[in-house]
């Protein structure tokens, strides 16, 4: 955090100065470790085992915040007796189909819900469409007749299921798996639990490298389970903080430039399942379900109304059929492989540099070299614009400029001070930026580019009677244009995003004003309120020193300017603060409404004593003491029967590339992960397969303070280039000795995809760890460099293959295996020969595919696994 989010880290230091204990868990000693009270080095890719061990410590010592857990989580809910855990199936959950590598989740449901409580779509479809991302806010659909045992004694209540599941993660197993000493592990357990009480809360902070694993979603789930058990969610000083790495990456998820989402986490319609407006809305609304998603019809119809205006009527289902349909995986990695296969004609890159920043750099560049045309919009001449003349593939002869057909347009972009608009930062806060100056020369904003591109396309299609052109011709595409360059008025766009009353144009104040009859329009329902009272709330700048610590009058936070989500949980079931010290939101008996320091995340006049009648759905179905109002039962999900494709509970799997056999189960790595087995995407073998010894070391990557991701905004900036001028690799003195590496000298790193070189930094910041009785060396690389800019170097992301988390289709790019050799890498074609030699030695040349299912009937030969564990078919 000190390294990549230094100014945010001031608040950690402030807390430390007031007595907080700071623990840093990381494979490498960083600037954060230097300021922490305790630094715990950990083997990369073992976070579930580490956190699972803490959960086991909590449950076996009954250190959970019992009153919170019983009232606010699903700990008491009874799970189906058909559910079989990984403990009994050698690393698989019940319902696994080894053919499709997906689960039938029927047995994961709550007792009595097996038939009707399951997901609407099968898991194969859900994996293809990254539906976990849609579930980001949908929550679970839960009927109100679920069975509960509030004593938590029923053998199949979630609490007991959890207790059995995590019982394997003992301090010894954690030590063996993670390379962390039992003493240090227990120190973390004690600190975390002792600081999580009525009077104290503990915060868990992660950076989004956590998502870049084949089990990334389950990493975060493990953190969520722990924080729920300890009563740290929805309370001040608690929570799980995702530190995101781009100025508006939160905004670009809320208003998604993502294939499977529409604004406000509405799903992109799927051709097979969403053939009508009603089917599409019901996919989010889950008729009969409780919680705020019951109003999904108003959010969805208002969005269609914002896009197609007067043309969107009840008679034509508000132009629902104008939306294109998805039919499977259309994610960025699938698309890049399709480029290599010649299926994509044109590609836009908007302030993004995949030649350096995406996994498997060679695949990215070869894909771009096989297009009809490419439009790059950026501040600088980045590598993704120049791949045809100076990429590593030009040096190897894989791209020959005279033979590369891609037509490239490099259009200069306006910088953040040359346009106005909002960023949404990592705390969901929108902040408006004023325009300081006009952009120079041909530089233009994305708002300008896309507005005018749309205008020109519509001019070309004007008069067309072709049905396919109607969505474009009838699109609301009329914004006031400002100044000499005719930039669209960003505030007018923000007003459309906010939503308005169609008849009067009055901006809506809250999404509860949205209607289902087409009388309201609004582009992104969760942003409704940002133009409350016609005032740009994101531009509010009342100085922090003139406000309380919540600072609610600086910017605007979705939803409804609420700064802490689910803050109803900061009060006890009766609505009283858990303690005076941690008072945040509470029920004011006199006023008969919720009050406090923040906007209450609850219906403001619903008393804690409110109980819904049986069968009541929607918002009214949420009881007065159910704080998690987006979930179908109003409760935090310790166990998740729906929405996850790799299991209702997190379980330790090895990274896809690992030098170790999974010490806990026969199943080696995530069995449901998304793979693209192709000869241009070979993965290094892992146990139980032979060949893993060819790549004996573990590598991980991350950022330096002085650079930004793929370097497009830092390697071209003189000050920053000077501060960190060269690509390097950090290795321990022990590994340097083993491989003959010299501090300041050169080395090269080899995987099945690439060989890259870097300067060697020998440092004790990298610690060799004892895992499964032997030493593992981990190496660390920053991933900022490429062939362009003031300082150049090889790209660490070239080392990676493409293997994805099944829930959200994000790649495993924070861990892989490699070899490290002294000296510079070969150049020209010789570097390809070197990689081929390694592929040959590892036995992965040709058609050999590495088995993914490593336990149960039909699994690959494995002497260590338990072949009797079963694992096929629904039970």
């Amino acid at each position, binding site marked *: 955090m000190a390294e*990549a*989010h230094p100014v945010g880290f001031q608040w950690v230091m402030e807390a430390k100065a007031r007595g907080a204990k700071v623990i840093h868990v990381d494979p490498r000693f960083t600037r954060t470790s230097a300021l922490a009270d305790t630094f715990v080095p950990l083997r990369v890719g073992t976070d579930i085992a580490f956190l699972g061990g803490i959960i086991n410590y909590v449950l076996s010592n009954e250190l959970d915040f019992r009153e919170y857990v019983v009232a606010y989580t699903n700990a008491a809910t009874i799970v189906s007796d058909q559910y079989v855990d990984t403990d009994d199936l050698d690393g698989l959950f019940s319902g696994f189909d080894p053919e499709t590598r997906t689960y039938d989740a029927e047995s994961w449901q709550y007792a009595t819900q097996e038939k009707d409580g399951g997901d609407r779509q099968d898991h194969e479809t859900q994996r293809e469409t990254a539906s976990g991302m849609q579930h980001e806010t949908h929550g679970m659909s839960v009927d109100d007749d679920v069975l509960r045992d509030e004593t938590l004694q029923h053998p199949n209540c979630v609490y007991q299921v959890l207790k059995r599941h995590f019982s394997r993660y003992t301090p010894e197993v954690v030590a063996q798996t993670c390379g962390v000493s039992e003493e240090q592990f227990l120190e973390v357990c004690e600190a975390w639990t002792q600081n999580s009480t009525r009077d104290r809360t503990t915060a868990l902070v992660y950076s989004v490298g956590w998502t870049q694993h084949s089990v990334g979603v389950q990493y975060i789930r493990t953190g969520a389970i722990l924080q729920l058990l300890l009563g740290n969610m929805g309370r001040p000083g608690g929570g799980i903080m995702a530190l*995101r*790495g781009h*100025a*508006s*990456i939160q*905004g*670009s998820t809320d*208003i998604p430039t*993502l294939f499977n989402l529409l604004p406000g986490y509405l799903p*992109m319609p799927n051709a097979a399942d969403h*053939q009508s407006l009603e089917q599409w809305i019901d996919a989010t609304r889950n008729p009969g379900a409780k919680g705020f998603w019951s109003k999904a019809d108003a959010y969805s119809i208002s969005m269609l109304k914002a896009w197609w205006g007067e043309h969107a009527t009840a008679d034509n289902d508000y132009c629902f059929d104008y939306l294109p*349909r998805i*039919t499977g995986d259309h*994610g960025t990695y699938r698309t890049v492989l399709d*480029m290599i296969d010649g*299926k*994509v*004609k*044109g590609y836009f890159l*908007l*302030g993004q540099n*995949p030649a350096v920043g*995406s996994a498997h750099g060679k695949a990215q560049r070869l894909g771009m070299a096989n297009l009809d*045309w490419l439009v790059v919009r950026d*501040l600088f001449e980045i590598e993704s614009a120049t791949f045809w*003349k100076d990429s590593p593939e030009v040096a190897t002869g894989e791209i020959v400029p005279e033979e*590369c057909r891609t*037509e*490239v*347009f*490099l*259009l200069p972009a306006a910088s953040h001070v*040359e346009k106005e608009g909002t*960023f949404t930062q990592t705390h969901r806060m929108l902040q408006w*930026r*004023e325009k*300081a*100056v006009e952009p120079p*020369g*041909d*530089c233009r904003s994305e*708002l300008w580019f896309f*507005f005018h591109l749309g205008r020109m*396309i519509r001019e*070309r299609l004007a008069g067309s009677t072709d049905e*396919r052109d109607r969505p474009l011709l009838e*699109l609301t595409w009329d914004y006031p244009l400002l100044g000499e360059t005719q930039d669209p008025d960003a505030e007018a766009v923000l007003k459309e*995003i906010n939503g308005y009353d169609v008849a009067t144009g009055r901006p809506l104040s809250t999404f509860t004003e949205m209607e289902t009859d087409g009388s309201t329009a609004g*582009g992104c329902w969760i942003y409704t309120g940002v133009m409350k009272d016609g005032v740009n709330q994101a531009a509010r*700048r009342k100085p922090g020193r003139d406000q309380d610590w919540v600072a609610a009058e600086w910017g605007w936070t979705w939803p409804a300017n609420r700064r802490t989500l689910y803050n109803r949980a900061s009060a006890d079931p009766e609505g009283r603060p858990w303690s005076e010290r941690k008072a945040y939101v509470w029920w004011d008996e006199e006023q008969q409404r919720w009050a406090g320091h923040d906007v209450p995340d609850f219906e403001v006049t619903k008393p804690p004593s409110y109980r819904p009648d049986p069968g009541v759905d929607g918002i009214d179905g949420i009881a007065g003491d159910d704080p998690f109002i987006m979930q179908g039962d109003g409760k935090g999900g310790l166990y998740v029967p729906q929405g996850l494709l790799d299991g209702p509970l997190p379980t330790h799997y090895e990274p896809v590339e690992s030098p170790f056999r999974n010490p806990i189960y026969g199943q080696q790595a995530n069995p449901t992960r998304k793979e693209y087995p192709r000869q241009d995407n070979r993965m290094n073998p892992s146990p139980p397969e032979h060949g893993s010894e060819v790549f004996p070391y573990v590598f991980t990557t991350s950022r330096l*303070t*002085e650079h930004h*991701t793929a370097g497009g905004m830092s390697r071209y*900036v003189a000050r920053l280039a000077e501060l960190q001028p060269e690509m390097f690799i950090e290795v321990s003195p022990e590994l340097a000795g083993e491989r003959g590496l010299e501090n300041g000298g050169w080395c090269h790193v080899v995987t099945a995809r690439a060989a890259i070189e870097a300067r060697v930094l020998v440092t004790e910041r990298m610690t060799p760890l004892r895992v499964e009785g032997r030493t593992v060396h981990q190496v660390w690389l920053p991933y900022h460099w490429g062939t362009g*800019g003031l300082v150049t170097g090889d790209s660490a992301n070239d080392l990676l293959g493409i293997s994805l988390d099944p829930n*959200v289709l*994000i*790649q495993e790019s924070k861990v892989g295996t490699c070899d490290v050799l002294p000296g510079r890498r070969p150049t020209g074609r010789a570097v390809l020969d070197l990689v081929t030699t390694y592929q040959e030695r590892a036995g992965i040349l040709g058609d050999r595919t590495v088995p993914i299912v490593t336990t149960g009937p039909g699994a690959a030969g494995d002497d260590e696994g338990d072949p009797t564990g079963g694992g096929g078919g629904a039970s």
Partner: protein
Amino acid sequence: MAKVNLGWPVLRQLLGSDVLGRGVAARSKQTDATTARTETADRVAKSVCPYCAVGCGQQVFVKDEQVIQIEGDPDSPVSRGRLCPKGSASKNLVTSELRQTKVRYRRPFGTEWEDLDLDVAMEMIADRVVKARNDTWQDLDDQGHKVRRAMGIASLGGATLDNEENYLIKKLFTAMGAIQIENQARI
């Protein structure tokens, strides 16, 4: 002579009230004659740092329509005036001589960049989008379901852009039937 000696900074520090030498003792005529460029700016725009997602407040100082300084905004409850090395370098980011300010064009099989007018580039891109859309249009998928889309057009980017920009990008691409629209959040 004594008067001259008393003017020495070290003597002013030792004999005067500013023992630490961080205030009046360290000042000179030159100091007094210097004005911070932030004080003579024509205007100050309230902005936000463009790098990571912490969202630190920035003040952008403008004189003669040029950015002359970018500093942390002390009013911001997020950052309290602080900026990290990247945020502090953002004036250098926006004024860098390496900034691309002219459209560059590489024709198929070309070995060098060429110049191209922005207007011409926009017309060419619009032509190509319309053509790629027509050439790869699908009304139905192989199971006969309505899909009305064009798989020949893809886009990547958005995490560094404004919400308003992402909104128009998604809206336009969706209306034209382009669905392979992605950004850093998938990466």
